[in-house]
């Protein structure tokens, strides 16, 4: 055995808490304390440890990378079995997952550290409430288990970072060590509560609890890294006691008994680590496999044991000046690295004669199969059937083939036992919204905030690139990363805009922004780049209005509502009994009456008051040409155009309806109360009074539709009315600041919730179908959703969504519930296009989790009663699904064509094949009947 203490492996003498060798053996990682109580991870080249020549060669890099992102001491780090990821956990309660990055070395700015490689955090896992002490990857990298002083073991889904697969509760003390069974059936964890627990991965329930040998132990160690032997037969625990002496307990997999232990260390054993290699004696006749286990202790020593021998292979006393914290075996080269709290590492290399020969991976797999059977070795994922399902009908086979050809998207057929590789960002992934795409846009955009400060939209250089696979091998000659430098010319071009924007700074926390409180947070200034628009009054508004205003000028618009009325101030008005702030008379109002044929050109209307003679004047122009003018009895508070009519609401509470030529069509109509909001669409106008009563009129028929319908109940609990619109057929829709939109149903005489931005499923973005970026007029639901989203740009129902994500089944149910509500809302809003869109999304969601009963119900609803097996006595006309069918008929689409489009989605889940065949048969019948 050779022993080496490479002095250059050091975090500036600060304590090292963990070490792990990369599976390909080219590098190793150390973690520990950083400057100012932060955490540091360093990656090191293995070559100078293994070879003296490489150590002397100054062109061979030693430290490859330094990651200073942890805000607390790094207690644990482990490479995934694939070597693609490094997971680290620290005192900052975070677990970070690192991946090699193309963008080269990136030493922290301003530090003198050299970086040969770039590693980037691809995921930050927040879930623990305390220091993360140990972590371990599951055998096929499907999961990551982490344990913490919050007494929990969390199991994370490595295919979807952030998803917690299981929370293993049971320990009553700090959990300080965790490891997986190499077969993937169990997980073990050791805690300060003097137990070692074994958990089943099938249902994440406790399997057993070993307590007796730990009874006399005290919580004296920083870590308790237990380890599972590579053949799966034994767990070796950290600190246990036997007859008053510290030992490492050997727990037998068969019945979880512990009759043996490794004895000899003088103080508590902090860490045990098996080599992942199964070993054999070279050149012997009968080559019984065995394993090597290393133990590190608080007595500063390390011992190495072979399971085939009763005595230790080697014991090194006083290897360090402080407690041993972690151990790691080189997979191929019989090398062990230990690290210590004293800030140093030690490498021990063994000869073949001492340690034995490693079995090949195939031999090892064969051995495990012999011990545990083939099926046990398949990786298990939750929600997967243990046994693969058979395809029962040849029809299904062809459809599946077709489906796979058409789109590579459908998830791999489940039940195949292949662990999914972690998701990589696709190469052609679109740039994040609001960023200039590609080259060409090497410029920053500068605007001014209302208080004169500049606001810069930076030039987007690159998204965070990570390489899917580790770059072959680093060369020592790679150029060093940047330091701060002096440059001659700027590489960024500056584009200055005269537009005024509001910086996105939260008012509550910062006094810096003096911008007026605008109701909706302005959208990203991608929109700000709009050309200068109409009047100063408009320009000083938030950029939302800018966009509206510019649209109004450049396109021939539908009777779109002009700039939103002034923001409502809820608090002041609630006191006086008013629920919604009334409209105040503005200095100038404008509206556009669209052209209606060649003889009826577009007209611009403008209401002004307090003008020359103190009169309130409404002027109509065609282009710059004056057409007519009328005088109003009191100042106008709102001006709208619809149905060839001009509507003006005056401050004295009446509605004046003028013809195209400026003739008064009806006597002024007194409004039911002070007017707070107005809207017009088609032949309908909508008025919301300060008492939150909603009325609508049909101006063509000169008739009332909705009469003083109270909506105050929708604004309870401090909610504000942020918008009101009309559907195409003139039903009122109110948007409330809680992120909800309500549609008034005349038949139900009540408000229906059609959009809920806070629905738990709404935040699960992957369930949403591809929505058009700018909703067209026919997409009533998309328009509402966009409005609601604008209300809550930052936190769309994050809390319930996160809670739901903890349980994938619950998340799937939340998603289905959300999609269900979208389908119902599309029907209520009478939007056939969106009905099919959301129905397809619902279908896909249900199919992906194999929810057969609901899918069957959905299919039967679409097929109709005559074709379903449902009894005819049920009254299907009352069902909402039928409304959807009539809706589809309106656009000339038969309900079964939609079903036909959706049905192939079922084949992705084999458990649904019978449903597929059944519905397909019925559908064929319908189609046949239809063609005759």
């Amino acid at each position, binding site marked *: 055995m050779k022993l080496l203490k490479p002095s250059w492996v050091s975090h500036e003498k600060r304590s090292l808490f963990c070490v792990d060798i990369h599976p390909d053996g080219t590098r190793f990682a150390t973690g520990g304390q950083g400057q100012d109580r932060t955490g540091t991870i360093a990656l090191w080249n293995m070559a100078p440890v293994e070879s003296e020549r490489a150590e002397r060669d100054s062109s061979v890099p030693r430290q490859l990378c330094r990651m200073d992102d942890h805000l607390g001491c790094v207690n644990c780090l482990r490479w995934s079995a694939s070597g693609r990821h490094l997971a680290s956990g620290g005192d*900052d309660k975070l677990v970070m997952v690192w991946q090699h990055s193309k963008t080269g070395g990136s030493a922290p*700015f*301003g530090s003198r550290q050299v970086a040969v490689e770039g590693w980037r955090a691809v995921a*930050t896992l927040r879930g623990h409430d305390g220091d993360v002490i140990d972590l371990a990857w599951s055998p096929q990298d499907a999961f990551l288990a982490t344990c913490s002083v919050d007494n929990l073991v969390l199991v994370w889904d490595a295919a979807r970072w952030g998803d917690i697969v299981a929370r293993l509760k049971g320990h009553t003390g700090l959990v300080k060590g965790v490891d997986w069974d190499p077969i993937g059936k169990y997980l073990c964890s050791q805690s300060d509560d003097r137990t070692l627990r074994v958990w089943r991965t099938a249902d994440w329930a406790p399997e057993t609890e070993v307590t007796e040998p730990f009874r006399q132990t005290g919580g004296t160690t920083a870590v308790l890294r237990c380890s599972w032997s590579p053949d799966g037969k034994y767990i070796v625990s950290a600190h246990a006691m036997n007859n008053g002496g510290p030992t490492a307990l050997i727990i037998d997999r068969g019945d979880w008994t512990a009759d043996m232990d490794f004895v000899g260390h003088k103080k508590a054993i902090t860490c045990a680590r098996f080599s992942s290699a199964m070993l054999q004696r070279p050149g012997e006749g009968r080559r019984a496999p065995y394993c090597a286990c290393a133990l590190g202790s608080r007595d500063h020593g390390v011992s190495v044991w072979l399971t085939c021998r009763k005595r230790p292979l080697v014991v090194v006393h006083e290897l360090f000046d402080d407690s041993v914290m972690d151990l790691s075996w080189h997979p191929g080269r019989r090398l062990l690295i230990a690290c210590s709290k004293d800030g140093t590492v030690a490498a021990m290399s063994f000869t073949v004669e001492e340690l034995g020969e490693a079995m090949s991976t195939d031999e090892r797999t064969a051995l495990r199969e012999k011990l545990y059977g083939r099926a046990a070795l398949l990786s298990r994922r939750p929600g997967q059937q243990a046994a693969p399902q058979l395809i029962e009908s040849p029809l299904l086979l062809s459809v599946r083939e077709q489906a796979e050809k058409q789109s590579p998207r459908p998830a791999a057929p489940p039940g195949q036992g292949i662990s999914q590789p972690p998701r990589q960002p696709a190469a052609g992934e679109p740039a994040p919204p609001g960023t200039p795409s590609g080259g060409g846009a090497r410029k*920053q955009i500068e605007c001014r905030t209302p208080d004169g400060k500049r606001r810069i939209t930076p030039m987007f250089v690159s998204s965070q690139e990570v390489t899917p696979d580790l770059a072959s091998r680093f060369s020592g000659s790679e150029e060093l990363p940047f330091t701060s430098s002096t440059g001659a010319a700027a590489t960024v071009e500056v584009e200055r805009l005269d537009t005024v924007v509001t*910086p*996105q700074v939260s008012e509550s926390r910062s006094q810096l922004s003096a911008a007026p409180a605008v109701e909706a947070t302005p959208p990203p200034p991608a929109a700000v780049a709009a050309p200068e628009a109409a009047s100063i009054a408009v320009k000083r508004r938030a950029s939302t209005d800018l966009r509206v205003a510019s649209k109004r000028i450049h396109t021939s618009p539908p009777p779109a509502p002009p700039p939103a009325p002034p923001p409502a101030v809820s608090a002041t008005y609630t006191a006086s009994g008013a629920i919604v702030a009334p409209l105040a008379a503005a200095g100038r109002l404008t509206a556009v009456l669209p052209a209606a044929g060649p003889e009826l050109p577009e007209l611009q209307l403008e209401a002004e008051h307090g003008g020359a003679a103190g009169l309130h004047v409404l002027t109509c122009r065609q282009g710059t040409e004056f057409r007519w003018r009328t005088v109003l009895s009191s100042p106008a508070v709102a001006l709208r155009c619809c149905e060839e009519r001009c509507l003006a609401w005056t401050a004295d509470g009446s509605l004046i309806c003028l013809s195209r030529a400026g003739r008064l069509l009806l006597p002024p109509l007194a409004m039911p109360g002070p007017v707070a909001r107005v809207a017009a669409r088609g032949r309908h106008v909508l008025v919301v009074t300060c008492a939150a009563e909603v009325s609508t009129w049909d101006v063509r028929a000169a008739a009332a539709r909705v009469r003083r319908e109270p909506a105050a109940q929708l604004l309870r609990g401090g909610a504000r009315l942020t918008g009101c619109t009309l559907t195409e057929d003139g039903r009122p829709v109110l948007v409330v600041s809680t992120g909800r939109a309500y549609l008034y149903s005349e038949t139900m005489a009540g408000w229906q919730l059609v959009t809920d931005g806070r629905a738990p499923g709404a935040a699960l973005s992957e369930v949403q179908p591809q929505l058009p970026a700018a909703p067209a007029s026919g997409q009533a639901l998309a328009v509402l959703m966009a409005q609601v989203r604008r209300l809550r740009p930052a936190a769309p129902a994050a809390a319930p969504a*996160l809670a739901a994500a903890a349980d994938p089944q619950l998340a799937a149910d939340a998603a289905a519930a959300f999609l269900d509500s979208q389908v119902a809302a599309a029907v209520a809003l009478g939007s056939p296009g969106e009905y099919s869109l959301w129905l397809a999304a619902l279908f896909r969601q249900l199919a992906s989790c194999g929810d057969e009963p609901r899918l069957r119900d959905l299919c039967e609803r679409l097929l109709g009663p005559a074709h379903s097996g449902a009894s005819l006595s049920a009254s299907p006309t009352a069902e909402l699904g039928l409304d959807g069918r009539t809706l589809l008929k309106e656009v000339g689409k038969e309900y079964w064509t939609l079903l036909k489009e959706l049905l192939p989605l079922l084949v992705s889940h084999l458990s649904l094949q019978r449903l597929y065949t059944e519905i397909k048969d019925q559908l064929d019948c319908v189609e046949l009947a239809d063609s005759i």
Partner: protein
Amino acid sequence: MAKVHITNVSLLDNPAPYFSPFKFEITFEAIEPLPEDLEWKIIYVGSAESEEHDQVLDTVFVGPVPEGRHMFVFDAPHPDTARIPVQDALGVTVVLLTCSYRAQEFVRVGYYVNNDYTDPELKENPPEMPQFDKMQRNILASSPRVTRFKIEWGDVKPGQASDRP
């Protein structure tokens, strides 16, 4: 952990006459999209003696910041000479580049700045009243002093979603 890291600061037009603007080309990375703007400041330390003479040369908001690497040029006017003590006009002082998120400063980069006359004669015998128009400013670009501060980045934790309208 910090969601924004400065990866490079390049000083443009350096050295430069005293009355020319400061120009910093800043490259930074955001590991997550930021819902709010970053606020960058250039602060000129007029006198090492006290913070009284510190001048904020300019403040800019930078946003929106999606995830990824970004670059921008931050230029700021020269310091107001009236606010610089006569005895501190020549020699070494400091210029600071700071960045805040939600009104909390999380990084501060300090550079040494040397102000001196270019004319050898003036160098030898500096006039009693500083002649700023004849001075040259040289920022020691190669050794920035970086200080990082731990701040609240506003991670949305379950159960406490921020409730801003």
